[in-house]
């Protein structure tokens, strides 16, 4: 099946009239995603057209959701305005907001996260590649692609992938697909230190999803999200889990690209996280080329088939 999104999901795209948003709207439409609306304040009434699909553009998320029944938003809005764009989704009562934007000031996210507390809308991101639930068609078309991941590397299947990184996720997904297995859903939670969804939030959903048979957890230096997830997995997760932590060679105190990839103390190093993974029964991938194999080892040890 999948988590959070499926081929039935109707999405709107904030920033669809911009170059970045527009390009990925096209790719999502090509993938078979139901892009039913776009939102760009001031451009309501326009139509975004691609491959014969006509997507109406609205001035606000609330209007777009009401008119089209969209329940999920993909946010391609520049950093100074992205926090506001997230809150607009919350106010409109969407189920899910996926914020792709990199570079949002941390203070803005601190305020947004606080303002969202208790609301029904889940936030994934910011600074994330988005989510893909692969479909059954050629190149896994017919599924739902929110964000910027290449669709064709996916395949419909039973491995759940959750990661902070974009391109490293594609590595894992491609390894899985190349081995003839497939993904239930791939979720990029993003590289920012203050974000809407943690590894653990996604792991819990994968644990409950009848169609996810194994999980790959990809993390990096900085923060304690992976450790928190690992400890929960030890006590609660019945499915095989493989993990990889990037940044073992990163020098301390430096921001390694992602705003959240910075070592603060002894516990958020790659070594520390890998040690906890091992303690918690998570099969550790030695190198990024080993991620799918690590999951196969974990599945074999549990007598589980991922096919």
């Amino acid at each position, binding site marked *: 099946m999948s988590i959070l999104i499926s081929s039935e999901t109707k999405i709107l795209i904030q920033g669809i009239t911009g170059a*970045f948003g527009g390009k990925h709207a096209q790719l999502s439409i090509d993938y078979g995603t139901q892009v039913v609306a776009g939102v760009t304040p001031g451009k309501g009434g326009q139509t975004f057209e691609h491959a014969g699909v006509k997507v109406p553009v609205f001035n606000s998320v609330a209007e777009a959701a009401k008119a089209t029944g969209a329940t999920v938003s993909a946010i391609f809005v520049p*950093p*100074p305005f992205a926090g506001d764009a997230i809150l607009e989704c919350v106010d409109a009562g969407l189920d899910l907001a996926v914020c792709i934007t990199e*570079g*949002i*000031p*941390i*203070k803005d*996210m*601190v*305020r947004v*996260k*606080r*303002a969202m507390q208790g609301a029904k809308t889940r936030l994934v991101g910011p600074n994330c*590649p988005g989510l893909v639930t692969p479909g059954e068609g050629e190149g896994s078309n017919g599924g739902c692609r929110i964000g*910027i*991941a*290449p669709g064709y*590397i996916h395949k419909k299947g039973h491995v759940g992938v959750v*990661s*902070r*990184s*974009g*391109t*490293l*996720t*594609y*590595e894992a997904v*491609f390894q899985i697909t190349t081995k003839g297995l497939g993904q239930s859903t791939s979720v990029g939670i993003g*590289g920012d*230190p*203050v974000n809407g969804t943690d590894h653990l939030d996604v792991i819990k959903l994968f644990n409950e999803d009848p169609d996810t048979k194994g999980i790959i957890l*990809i993390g*990096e*230096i*900085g*923060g*304690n999200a992976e450790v928190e997830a690992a400890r929960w997995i030890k006590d609660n997760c019945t499915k095989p889990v493989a993990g*990889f932590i*990037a*940044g*073992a*060679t*990163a*020098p301390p105190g*430096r*921001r*390694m*690209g*992602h*705003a*959240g*990839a910075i070592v*603060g*103390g002894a516990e958020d190093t790659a070594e520390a996280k890998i040690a906890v993974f091992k303690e918690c029964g998570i099969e550790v991938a*030695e*190198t*990024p*080329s*080993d991620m799918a194999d690590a999951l196969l080892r974990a599945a074999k040890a549990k007598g589980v088939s991922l096919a």
Partner: protein
Amino acid sequence: MNIHEYQAKALFAKFGVPAPQGAAAKSSDEFATALSSLPEGPTMVKSQIHAGGRGKGTFTDGYKGGVKFCKTKDEALEVAGKMINNTLVTIQTGPAGRKVQTIYFTAALDIKKEYYLAILLDRATSRPVIVASTEGGVEIEKVAEETPEKITKVFIDPAYGLADFQIREIVFGLELTGGEAKNAYKLIRNLYTCFWETDASMVEVNPLITTPEGDVLALDAKVSFDDNALFRHPEIVELRDLNEEDPKEIEASKYDLAYIALDGNIACLVNGAGLAMSTMDIIKHYGGNPANFLDVGGGATKEKVIAAFKIILGDPNVGGIFVNIFGGIMDCNVIAEGIVDAVKEVGLKLPLVVRLEGNNVAAGKATLAASGLELVSGDTMADAAQKIVKLVA
């Protein structure tokens, strides 16, 4: 983004956070004027670099100590003369040290007691936190390990802001009373405003001091800012000191490339921070040593790729190059064209291993094959990493 102590104290002054009177000088010509602006009495002479441990540091010519107490103004002049344009090595600078280009003179005050006060973002709660301790002037990590009960922390609700009762909690935790408590209260309130309004990522005052007269001041100031928020703080951007940054990193930021110099000899060019970090990791895994972290980002153009290539080739330690691309947004052919053009422009005598996968990979591989460039391809990341390590060894 980091700033110097003297800049941080100027910022504090704007927000009503008291610090000892001070004046900065960027050359020996400016020393006399700076010193004459200070009151009579002893002076602190402080080397300005973006690193801690200055007091215990040593200059490369053997002169000891980057922070000195001077009884007279003449002594201060002499000491400053020894420090200016000299290179200071501290436990935080690394063995190469940093050139001191600014001296900060401050009035040397009598200290009654030293405390610790800092404001930063707590990742676990996604809230700002104020950390305070009666143990000032020492390493806070040590205090946290050995005597955690001497640390007070309050977490600020972003919806409400810093509450008065929270400031009181800090002040009581610092065991301050009477006039000192009143002064500390004001200082903390203003320091928090400074932190919040400037989009600082951290403000550290170590030590915060009380004087025999009952004043409370910031004796040192370490402030850094959220890079993501600089677009809305041109006044902070003006404080940037390019001399404190690696020239390659400065060049990279002009092109919006994330680049960090390391000390190995295998240069990397990768798209995506997670993949870039794990590229460094896999090189190490196979016995090599990465020369840098470099993320060209998703929407990189040919020009960006060329700029990236030139930057990594500008590192004299580089003995080989590993290009590892998984194109999602990134188009493999754009990378390929960038590499071909870059090599044409600067020439390449070093081993080059390229691993391309993803968006438009077939065209990318074709471009590289047709270029006649001497390069080695890798199929998987592991395969490519092993190849470059072997070639550079």
